[in-house]
């Protein structure tokens, strides 16, 4: 074979991947749990990938480019594992990435989907579809930002959620969200990205309930730029509208009106913030994106797999909040704990406002949420 840059790259990657088991032994003293996770990936993926590269370097060089790309993704993932091991060993993320991993594993198990490879702290949020690494942006604003990991997970789910469909009499496996977005966004990559973000928002809301929207309104979405689209993200007004739509759907199935109360409160809070900023509450008209939005909403609502993880019984969050976040971790979910934290926080803010004074110094609510999330996940 001619010695092309691609072939040289393939050879280098092959050599690199062969040294992965040694890397594993460097990770193990830093973080045993992470090492176990990596070891599982090595058996399942790295080994076959190394073999596939070796085969691709022999005539007739089957799919060399594709196999090189897959191997590059694994390198990214391996480096992410190393970064995660160091970050966790140093305590940089207060245990958040490990807990996020355990949390996402629960969802994957319930939906019979593959697990993500690893969650690592990063300067940016991102989910690598090929590498299956979820990056969580630090600082997280304490554990208030935990629902963001489910948003990132939503990107991953979009790429692995499948459905059997009948096409011209033949059964095939479709990846409905990706298929939908690719079809709608031909030559328009912006629509693809925006649709992906809306799906991830919808999934995060569906799984986490109001806790995700609380976080978005308080910490993420700047009302001064609420109407602005970017290359990769739709406007905040559109995103909040989509989240509220999902919350409304959850309300219809939630007894006791607790979710209704909090959804109405969020709607009002967002509207008030926009009003104070002199911003419009409705997103700018975009028929194509509106159409994608409707289709994505239907995908989210109709999926049997996703239904297993829908947030429900919001009363438990209220009860836990009223009890001061003391509860039996074995009977709770992470989503309930996060929502209880928000409920408790807004109740304290209400009371302080009523009494005309700042929030009193008291037990750290973020720490209480973190500890209870840890208890729920069986993590330290």
């Amino acid at each position, binding site marked *: 074979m001619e010695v092309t840059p691609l072939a040289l790259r393939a050879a280098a990657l092959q050599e690199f991947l062969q040294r992965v088991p040694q890397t594993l032994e460097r990770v193990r003293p830093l973080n045993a749990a992470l090492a176990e996770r990596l070891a599982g990936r090595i058996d399942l993926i790295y080994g076959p990938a190394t073999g596939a590269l070796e085969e691709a370097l022999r005539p007739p060089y089957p799919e060399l480019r594709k196999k090189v790309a897959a191997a590059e993704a694994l390198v990214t993932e391996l480096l992410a594992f190393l970064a995660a091991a160091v970050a966790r060993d140093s305590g940089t993320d207060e245990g958040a990435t490990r807990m996020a991993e355990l949390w996402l594993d629960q969802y994957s198990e319930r939906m019979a989907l593959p697990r993500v490879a690893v969650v690592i702290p990063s300067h940016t949020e991102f989910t690598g579809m090929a590498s299956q690494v979820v990056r969580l942006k630090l600082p997280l604003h304490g554990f208030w930002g935990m629902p963001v990991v489910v948003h990132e997970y939503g990107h991953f789910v979009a790429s692995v959620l499948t459905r059997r469909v009948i096409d011209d009499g033949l059964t095939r496996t479709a990846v409905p969200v990706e298929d939908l977005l690719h079809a709608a966004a031909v030559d328009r990559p912006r629509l693809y990205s925006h649709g992906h973000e809306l799906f991830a928002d919808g999934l995060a809301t569906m799984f986490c309930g109001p806790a995700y929207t609380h976080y978005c309104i308080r910490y993420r979405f700047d009302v001064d730029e609420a109407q602005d689209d970017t290359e990769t993200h739709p406007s905040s007004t559109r995103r909040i509208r989509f989240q509220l739509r999902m919350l409304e759907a959850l309300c219809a199935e939630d*007894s*006791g*009106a*607790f979710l*209704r*109360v909090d959804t*109405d*409160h969020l709607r009002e809070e967002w509207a008030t913030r926009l009003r104070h900023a002199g911003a419009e509450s409705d997103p700018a008209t975009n028929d194509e994106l509106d159409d994608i939005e409707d289709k994505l909403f239907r995908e989210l609502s109709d999926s049997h797999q996703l239904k297993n993880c829908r947030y429900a019984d919001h*009363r438990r969050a*209220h*009860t836990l*909040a*009223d*009890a001061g976040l003391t509860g039996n971790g074995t009977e709770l979910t992470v989503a309930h704990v996060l929502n209880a934290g928000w409920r408790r926080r*807004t*109740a304290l803010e*209400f*009371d302080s406002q*009523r*009494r005309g*004074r700042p929030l009193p110094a008291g037990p750290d609510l973020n720490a209480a949420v973190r500890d209870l999330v840890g208890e729920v996940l069986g993590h330290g």
Partner: protein
Amino acid sequence: MGDLVMRTRVSVTRRNLRRIQELNTMIERYEVDLGEFLSLPDRVAEEVNGLWRDALALAPRVRDLQQPQDDEYQESNDSEAEDHPYRDLMELADALDRLASGLTRPRDQAKRIRAQVKRLMGPRKDVSDYLLRAAKDLEGRLTLENFREQRAGVDSLFSDYVELLRGIALRQAAFGDEANQLRDLFLIADELPSLWSARGWTWQSLAVPSLQERKPGEASLLRIGFPEWTVWALPFVNNSFAHVYIKKQELALGADPEEVDTLADALATVVTGPAYACAALLLRLDPASVTDALSEATVRSATVLQTLFRIRELVPPSTLSRLIGRLCTEWRDAVQAAGGSVDALDAALRSDFIGKMVDKAFDECLYRREGHHDPPIWADRWSLVSSWADSLRRRKHRSIDLSKFSPGAYDRPEALNLLLDAVWLARVGVSDDEDAPVEDLDEIAKGAVSRMLDVINAGRRPGSRRRTSLKPNR
């Protein structure tokens, strides 16, 4: 000369007042008689056991005496065997053993009844504080000259005395009744006022069934009027007790009866929660009588609603807010449909007079911090009430977790109150699609009563303390 009539009446009245003062002695004597009767099963069991032991002890001796005849006995036929004293003694022992076993249930039952009667007939603060003291006071002050002025008070006291005796008799009549529903309800009604314990004053209540609910008179009996001898009407006990509380705490010195009544409604609402509003609006008050700003139905309904609106401002938005909104809307619709005056109701809802009574109730019942009232405990724990309501609605009352309300703890009476709010919330949801079907109401009520009794019975275990000196609603 010419005072025979008065002298006779004063003498008879004094005699009757002394009879009231003998009430405790009469009750104790009754209790002794009843106690002797109720201990009969124990005494019989003791005798039977003695006979059984004697029979067992005698049987081998009889057998030994008849030893040479044993071979003959074994060869003899059945009819002769039946006459054998050893066999007879063994049969007697078996019969006595069965009799002793059969007495276990009556003994347990008698023990239970004895405890209940003892509790019922034991020294009751309301009897000794009000009825007996009132009788003694009156007897001491009664003269020929003031007989006419004292007449009304005397008649009221006699009426209370008769009601008390009748009430106790009626409650006793329920003993032994398998359903025991009446007994259970009045046991709970006795305990409800313990929510109101004021500094240095412990209330031991007795609620009596009555033909009509009347405000407590001199004896401060709490009457529960027929036909509302149900869990749904229990909140009215708190209104009755509010009158006692107002008098005891001297909250309305020299005030007119309307002020007292309005304050009582406000207090009952603050202490009880929406259960009181539901009982008042859905069971008692006539929407057609909301005719003008001063009619009783107008003032009472507006007081209850204004109180709830004010409490709503003390807590963050919640399903409680929705329930309060719904009750107001439903009442307004009922007033309109019945031909009452919605304008009169709205005016009363803005009434300053009612507002002042609500202020007074808040000051009396709710703690202040940093110049602002704390919400009532039932409002703070509304999600728990909702959770319990859901359990009652689904007929899973056993899943209501009372473990946090430990026996003797200060918040044990609160558990009763939360259950009262929960049972009404189970019946009337925050929206009409959450209302319980009519056919489920009996089961819901039974479930709630069962848990309330668990609260009461756990509180009576040895070592449990009674709350005495905390402000209502802590």
